[in-house]
């Protein structure tokens, strides 16, 4: 017993020494590995130089967040056609989680060359220097809706070409409309008329209007009243302006007198579900509602109208994505040429046909309305719509706003706006 313990003890001193050396070795090893990772960063700097051009065909990678097979196929076809014509190679990759995959690419210094950028993350990407501004090289760049280009503009620099867009409009259940004794002449064009028809449409089984929760729906009322959460030009928050308070109070009034409900109140995930299940006679949603109604609620007849005008005129919200080109891409010239091919009016009309999005070029508007006359109220919003809050760093602030707007019916409107203002000011200063 005592003998063994003695040998262990003598053995231990030797082993501790050895253990220390190996620990040092491990630490050295990991610091070398860390340094190697760091090296990758310095190499990036060379990639920042303008793209190489003309030395052989480029191999482009395009990362898209596809809405389905139809969109994937449309993008693949267009990209392959461009590749064939220009002699380059293109690979279209459909992302599972585009935010995460792009982050990996940006951090690793090898992002895809062309990728979708949603308007709500644009500011962060642009500020971090991940995006290559190419609008001045794009042919026909002034043909895009100015509101859309503004959405992808930071510090007076337009970065990327809008892929397509969607707007909000008012959807009306035809049967309920008739049952309430309303005619085409009654389609609301002002806030008062909206309150009026919402009240007339409200029955014990059906609310007049169902609204999805969050800033992406009530925001339209702010625009109609001449307000907005932030001023993109000055980069300041403007939430506490009286126009915003009035707009939210108007919506709150509708909710309080029961002529409007929020989607969760009627057990719906979004406005379209509450509308499709006929728990409400009207909703405010974008053109994506077409597909949902066709697939899930084919028996519900409805018409679409432009959103009513507020005291400050027409207003709606724009939702859009752009084709971003990576600042680290070695094939920027080829990438710009690919984006040009993907955004021609012809291609945009093909996309509209394939997966129901609206062209972002004004020159395609007339043809689009010819093809889809019933979508005229949606595309009209392209002229007066407002894009999402795109200032960098505001993600958590607008998420907090959304969470507070869940309680819009009972909440203190001024309190919501003040807390947004305070949080946004802290982030933007």
């Amino acid at each position, binding site marked *: 017993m005592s003998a063994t313990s003695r040998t262990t003890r003598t*053995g231990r001193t*030797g*082993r501790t020494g*050895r253990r220390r050396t*190996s620990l040092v070795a*491990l630490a050295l*090893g*990991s610091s070398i*590995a*860390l*340094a190697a*990772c*760091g*090296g*990758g*960063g*310095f190499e*990036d700097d060379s990639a920042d130089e303008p793209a190489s051009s003309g030395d052989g065909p480029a191999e482009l990678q395009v990362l898209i967040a596809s809405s389905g097979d139809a969109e994937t196929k449309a993008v693949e076809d267009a990209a392959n056609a461009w590749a064939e014509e220009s002699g380059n190679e293109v690979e279209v990759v459909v992302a599972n*989680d585009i*935010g*995460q995959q792009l*982050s990996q690419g*940006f*951090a690793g*210094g090898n992002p895809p060359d062309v990728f979708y950028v949603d308007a709500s*993350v644009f500011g*962060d*990407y642009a*500020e*971090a*220097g*991940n995006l290559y501004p190419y609008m001045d090289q794009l042919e026909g760049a002034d043909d895009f809706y100015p509101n859309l280009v503004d959405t992808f503009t930071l510090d007076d620099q337009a970065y990327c070409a809008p892929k397509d867009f969607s707007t909000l409009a008012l959807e009306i259940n035809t049967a309920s409309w008739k049952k309430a004794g309303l005619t085409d002449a009654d389609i609301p064009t002002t806030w008062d008329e909206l309150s009026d028809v919402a009240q007339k449409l409200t029955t014990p089984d059906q609310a007049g209007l169902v609204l999805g929760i969050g800033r992406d729906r009530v925001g339209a009322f702010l625009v109609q009243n001449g307000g907005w959460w932030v001023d993109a030009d000055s980069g300041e928050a403007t939430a506490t302006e009286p126009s915003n308070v009035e707009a939210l109070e108007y919506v709150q009034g509708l909710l309080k007198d029961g002529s409007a409900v929020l989607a*969760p109140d009627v*057990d719906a995930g979004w406005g379209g579900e509450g509308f499709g299940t006929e728990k409400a006679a009207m909703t405010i949603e974008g053109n994506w509602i077409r597909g949902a109604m066709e697939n899930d609620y084919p028996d519900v007849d409805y018409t679409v109208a432009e959103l009513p005008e507020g005291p400050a005129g027409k207003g709606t919200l724009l939702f859009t994505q752009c084709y971003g080109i990576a600042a*680290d891409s070695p094939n920027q010239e080829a990438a710009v040429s690919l984006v040009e091919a993907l955004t021609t009016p012809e291609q945009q009309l093909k996309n509209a046909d394939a997966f129901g999005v609206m062209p972002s070029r004004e020159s395609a508007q007339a043809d689009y309305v010819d093809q889809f006359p019933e979508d005229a109220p949606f595309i009209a919003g392209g002229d007066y719509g407002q894009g999402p809050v795109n200032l960098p*760093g505001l*993600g*958590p*602030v607008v*998420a*907090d706003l959304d*969470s507070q707007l*869940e*309680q819009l019916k*009972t909440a203190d409107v001024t309190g919501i706006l003040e807390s947004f203002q*305070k*949080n946004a000011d*802290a*982030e933007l200063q």
Partner: protein
Amino acid sequence: MSRSSSIRTGQARAGWAFVSPTLVVLGLFLAVPVLMALWVSFTDWNGRGSPFASGTGFVGLDNYRELVGEQGGLTRSDFMTSLRNNFFYVLLVVPLQTAFALFLALVLNQRMLKGVGFFRTAFYFPSVVSSVAISLVFLFLFSGGGVINTLLDAIGIDGPTWFNDSRGLLHLLGDGLGLWNASAPPSGLTDGGVLGLTWWDWLAGPSVALSVIIMLVVWTTAGTFMLMFLAALQDLPLEVEEAARIDGAGRWGVFRNVTLPHLRPTMLLVTTLGLIGTWQVFDQVYVMTKGGPGKTTLTPAYLSYSYAFDNQKWGIAAAMAFVLFLIIFAMTTFQRFLFRDKDAIETKRQERRTRRLRARSAAEGGTAS
């Protein structure tokens, strides 16, 4: 002597050779990323290029100050909300899943039970099904017009809209008991507060939405822990139990004084694994609620993910991860302290005392001779 030491050196070299693949893999995929994340938590890295590149600024403890410091605005209140949610979550899930698992294991361990294999598989089944799949099923079960509410309706209860209900259970409980009115909370609780949340917010308890996630997790994890308990129970010799019976212990007495003490190491394992797992809950939140309604299912793990990948605030996200690590570390240490084997410690102490006494007496004997 020198010969034996050279043999030993050879052994050590061989030993290192054998473990080196594991060390390299662990170092590369565990130590290096953790160290990198630690570095990121001290910088303002914006996700572009390597965090060690020259453009990344070192900001010291700023990110940590945003999380817990006085000037932390929304970030701090988000983080504290997530800690509050996760705290109530842990407080309910760990005891419930442990008790449930133990109960299932005791049921399966009865010698009279027929078809043990079937039940064991049935109870274990939720644990091997993908948590994403189960989450989706729960989304349907607990939707406002879903199966659960239809069943509740049948017995005359008007069920809540589960995943859309942000009301806290403690708020509701206090309201039900007449302690306060949840729609007009007492000003004593709403006026004061600490770390960016009012006392009223801290005391909300898990929201209705979070309690659905709690039920789900208890149900899915109990199977795994049941197996651990079952294995330990089957180690308990029958004779010990019979001897206790002969000594006059009843069923409850045997359970309390024989079975439970025997299960202590397993209990420590189960609660420790449970504690670590529950503080890191992510999948269910990501699939079912994304932190809503009203941020009541926000957890630190999900918040960290969202700050990093949705908002490019990598430094703050990494800092959150390390604060979470410290919390888990502190709590598991405390738990080990609670579960320490007091008898064993006492035995060791006595042994040491005896040895000291013996040494002293030997020394005295030496001087005497």
